[in-house]
């Protein structure tokens, strides 16, 4: 069994964060999203992994993952180029996959469930493909699956106006090499992409059953800022980090606080977990860092109240203000304007920013 991680896409819904890097490297609990996919595959015993790259942030992903050694896997890169659809991305991995079965994992998705049992079930069966399904309240926004009496998939419809079920396909697929012949028969859709749902339909039309597996834990598509914050909250709730850094006398760190050994909580600061604080970061006196906050490396927070927020890193906040529910990109400075006249906000904001003042 091999693994394929799809790491293309433009990240348009995450701008301006993705102006300077790919969405797959946005950190959740101080770990890039794509690393969760790598680790999920590795824990399922899959160490031969292809990472399919698009045109945005290709080199940054390669710089982060390297050849995979650091993560205990062997990575082959597949350069897809223009975003021509999931079926095209999968089709580009044919030479890498060879005669093996394989798991496809969307690189901006997160899944709170071990893949091992699903992989074992798929390998034990005679299926050409398998999908993981989850019940949702808003199926019309996803690929909706219809099952037969045996639980096999008989139809997948992308974003239907009238969903037949509330079972949606999440971002993890299992395939036998038979899918490549099905992909060859897929023609570009109206939006000019080769749709993976069309490949599934070709398999079904060929009489090749598609297995379904229920996703039991949470699942997040981290395509939007709100999704990133929600994933951050979910991961921090179960985080296992430790208070390895310096907590000065007079500082307060309560609840689960994952403090890197080179990070410091200075006297007078209050940190209430679950919180993750990365290397080289200082939480200064009079500041408060509240639950579900991840602060990236080499950052500084002084006087501010920060809660349910992600600071990507290299960020300095010294304003005596309250910041909540925010995703703050790397290299940001938020300083006080209290002594400046005329009074008012002073902003240097990139394109596609979203502010609530």
């Amino acid at each position, binding site marked *: 069994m091999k693994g394929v991680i799809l790491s293309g896409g433009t990240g348009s819904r995450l701008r301006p964060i993705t102006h300077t890097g790919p969405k797959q490297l946005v950190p959740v609990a101080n770990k890039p999203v794509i690393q969760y996919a790598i680790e999920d595959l590795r824990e399922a015993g899959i160490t031969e992994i292809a990472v399919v790259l698009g045109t945005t942030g290709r080199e940054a992903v390669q710089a982060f993952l390297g050849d995979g050694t650091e993560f205990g896997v062997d990575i082959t*890169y*597949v*350069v897809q*180029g223009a975003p021509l659809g999931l079926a095209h991305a999968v089709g*580009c991995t044919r030479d890498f996959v060879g005669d093996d079965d394989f798991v496809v994992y969307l690189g901006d998705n997160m899944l709170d469930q071990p893949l091992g049992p699903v992989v074992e079930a798929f390998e034990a069966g005679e299926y050409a493909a398998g999908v993981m399904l989850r019940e949702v309240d808003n199926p019309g926004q996803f690929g909706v699956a219809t099952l037969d009496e045996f639980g096999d998939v008989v139809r997948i419809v992308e974003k239907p106006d009238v969903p037949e079920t509330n079972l949606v396909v999440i971002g993890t697929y299992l395939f036998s090499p038979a899918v490549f012949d099905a992909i060859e028969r897929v023609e570009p859709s109206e939006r000019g992409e080769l749709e993976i749902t069309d490949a599934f339909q070709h398999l079904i039309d060929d009489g090749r059953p598609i297995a379904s597996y229920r996703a039991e834990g949470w699942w997040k598509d981290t395509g939007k800022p709100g999704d990133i914050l929600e994933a951050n909250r979910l991961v921090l709730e179960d985080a296992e980090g430790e208070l390895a850094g310096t907590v000065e006398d007079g500082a307060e760190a309560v609840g689960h606080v994952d403090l890197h050994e080179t990070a410091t909580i200075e006297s007078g600061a209050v940190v209430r977990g679950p919180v993750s604080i990365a290397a080289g970061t200082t939480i200064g006196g009079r500041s408060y860092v509240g639950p579900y906050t991840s602060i990236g490396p080499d950052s500084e927070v002084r006087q501010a109240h920060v809660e349910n927020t992600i600071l990507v890193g290299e960020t300095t906040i010294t304003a005596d203000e309250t910041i909540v529910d925010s995703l703050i990109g790397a290299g940001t400075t938020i300083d006080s304007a209290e002594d400046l006249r005329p009074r008012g906000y002073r902003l240097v904001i990139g394109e596609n920013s979203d502010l609530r003042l």
Partner: protein
Amino acid sequence: MRIVTHTCPTCGTVVAGNVLETERLLRCPGLDCTAVLSFEDLSPEDRESVLEHATSYR
């Protein structure tokens, strides 16, 4: 639609035919690889297929 790819003989990085068609000549995008890849590396049949679908690719 047939999907054409080319595997770098030096590092094993796979490059889609549409990328080769667009760039025509490029340094292999593999990590630290200095090989030069060309659209001409594809077989005549593959080149024809990529060109045939160039509109779709764009």
